[in-house]
C-alpha cells in the first residue's frame, strides 16, 4: 500500500495536508482512552480479587471506665467470633490486635501515641470459604444481635466502586467511538475534496477503462500512508506521557494510587493504534470514493 505507484498526483496536493496532524491527535487521545480503560479494568479486577470472600465485623467499644470497657469489648468480640465460627461457610475469623489496627490507621491519622488512648472500634477479619455460599444478610442479622457488633460487607461499596468504574469505562469507549467518527469524517472530507481537485484525472482514468476500484485504491493507499504517519506521531506523543504518569504514580506513597503501569497486552493494543487508524482511514477513503463515483453517470 505504501509506495505503490499512483496515477493520481495525490502525494503533491494539499487536500490531505492536515490529515496526519489530526490523526496524530486522535491516536494520542485514543491511546489515553485505551490505557485508561485497561488500567481501570486492572484496578477493578484487583479490588474484586482482594475483597472477594472477605468480610469485616466491627465492634464498637463498650462504655465505662477503660478497664471495664476493655473487658466488655473483648466479650463482645468473642461473642461475635463465636457467632461467626458457628456459621457454615466461614473459613476463619480473627480479631485484629490493637497494634495492627493502629498500624493501619497511622498513615491516615499520624502519631500512634495519640491514637493509643482513643476508644477505637475492634475489627474482626472474616474469611469465607470460596466454595460455600454464605447468606451474608442472615449473617449480618446474627452478628448484629451481639451488642455493638455490625457486619461490613465490602461488596456493597465495591459494587458501587465497580459501577462507577464501569461508567468511566463506557465513557472512554464512547470517546473512542467519537474519535473514530471524527477521523472518518475528516478522511471523507479530504477524500471528496481530493476527488473534486483531481476530477479531470479521474475522468481520463475512467475513459481509458479504469474500474472504480482502481481509482478508489489510489485514494485508499494515500489515506493509509497519511493515517500511518499521523498515527506514528500520535503514538510518539503518547508513550512519554504514559511513562511519566506511571512514574508519578509510583512516587506516591501510602497506596493512595494503584499501579498505573500498562500490562504487556495494553502496550500491544496501544502500539497497534496507528495501524488501526491507518486502516480506518484507508477503508473510509475507499468507501467514500466508491460511493461518490457510483453517483456519477
Amino acid at each position: 500500500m505504501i509506495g505503490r505507484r499512483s496515477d493520481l498526483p495525490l502525494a503533491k496536493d494539499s487536500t490531505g495536508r492536515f490529515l496526519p496532524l489530526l490523526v496524530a491527535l486522535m491516536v494520542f487521545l485514543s491511546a489515553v482512552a485505551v490505557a485508561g480503560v485497561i488500567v481501570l479494568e486492572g484496578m477493578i479486577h484487583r479490588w474484586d480479587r482482594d475483597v472477594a470472600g472477605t468480610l469485616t465485623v466491627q465492634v464498637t467499644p463498650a462504655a465505662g471506665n477503660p478497664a471495664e470497657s476493655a473487658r466488655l469489648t473483648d466479650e463482645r468480640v468473642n461473642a461475635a467470633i463465636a457467632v461467626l465460627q458457628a456459621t457454615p461457610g466461614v473459613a476463619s475469623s480473627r480479631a485484629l490486635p490493637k497494634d495492627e489496627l493502629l498500624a493501619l490507621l497511622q498513615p491516615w491519622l499520624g502519631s500512634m501515641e495519640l491514637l493509643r488512648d482513643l476508644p477505637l472500634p475492634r475489627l474482626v477479619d472474616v474469611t469465607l470459604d470460596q466454595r460455600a455460599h454464605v447468606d451474608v444478610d442472615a449473617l449480618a442479622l446474627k452478628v448484629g444481635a451481639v451488642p455493638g457488633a455490625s457486619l461490613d460487607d465490602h461488596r456493597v461499596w465495591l459494587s458501587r466502586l465497580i459501577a462507577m468504574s464501569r461508567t468511566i469505562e463506557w465513557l472512554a469507549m464512547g470517546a473512542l467511538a467519537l474519535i473514530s467518527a471524527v477521523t472518518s469524517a475528516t478522511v471523507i472530507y479530504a477524500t471528496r475534496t481530493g476527488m473534486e481537485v483531481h476530477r479531470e484525472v479521474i475522468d481520463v482514468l475512467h475513459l481509458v477503462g479504469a474500474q472504480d476500484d482502481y481509482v478508489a485504491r489510489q485514494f485508499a493507499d494515500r489515506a493509509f500512508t497519511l493515517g500511518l504517519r499521523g498515527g506514528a506521531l500520535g503514538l510518539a506523543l503518547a508513550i512519554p506521557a504514559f511513562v511519566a504518569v506511571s512514574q508519578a504514580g509510583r512516587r506516591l506513597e501510602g497506596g493512595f494510587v494503584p499501579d498505573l503501569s500498562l500490562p504487556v497486552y495494553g502496550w500491544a493494543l496501544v502500539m497497534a493504534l496507528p495501524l488501526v487508524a491507518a486502516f480506518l482511514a484507508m477503508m473510509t477513503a475507499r468507501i467514500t470514493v466508491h460511493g461518490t463515483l457510483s453517483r456519477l453517470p
Partner: protein
Amino acid sequence: MVILGRVLETGTVQRQAATRGNVVQFKSVGLRYGSGPEVLQDIAFTLPAGSFHFLTGLSGAGKSSLLRLMYLAQRPTRGRVLLFEKDTADLARGQMPALRRRIGVVFQEFRLLDHLSALDNVALPLRVAGVSETDVQRYVPELLTWVGLADQLHAKPHTLSGGQKQRVAIARAVIGRPDLLLADEPTGNVDDQMAMRLLYLFEELNKLGTTVVIATHNEALVTRFRHPRLIIDHGQVSQVAPL
C-alpha cells in the same frame, strides 16, 4: 489486453479474432445539454466492424458530442446507442470499464495527465487493464519511438509542443489495440507529413480489425484517404460514400 506493439512485433494479423457484426449503432438518438435545444436529433446510423469513417461537419455541428456518446462519456437524452451490439442503456456501471477498454479515444484537447511523463500517459490504458510492467516498459517506448517521440519518453506534457502532445494522445489511444478508435481532430496540430504518417497508422490499425472514426476538418485527408463519411449538419447525420 492485446498490445499494439506485440501485435506488430509478432506480425499476427488477427482479423479473424476481431469484432464481428456492428460496432456502433445509433437508433433515433437525441441529445440535449440541460434544458437547451437538442444538439443531436434523431441520429441513426450503423458502423460495421472493421469500417473506417471520417466524421465531418462545421464547427459546432455536434461532432464532439457524437463522439462523446460513442466513448460513453455521455448518455443520450433519448434513443438507443449500441456498442458492440450491447445497448449501453442496459449496462451496469461495473460493465462500463470493460467496454471502454475496447475503445481508444484521441481527444481534441488531448487530455494528457500533466503530472505523468509521456511514457506513463501512454501506459495508462495498459496499467488500468493490469498489463505487466515488463510489457509496459517494452512496448510503450517502441510506440512512442514510432510516433517520433523517442527522446521525449520522460518528458511531461507541459514541456511538449502541441504536435508532440497530439502524438502522445494518439499513442495512448492505440496502445491497447482497441476494437473501436475514435479520434477528434487528430491531425489538427501536426504538420502534413506527420498527419499522413498518423493516418497510415490508423489505416494499419483498421487492417488489423479496428473500426475507426476520425472527426476532421482536413478536406485534403478526406480526399486522399478514400473512406466513407459521416456528415453532421444541424444536429443530423448522413452517411456518404468516399469522395
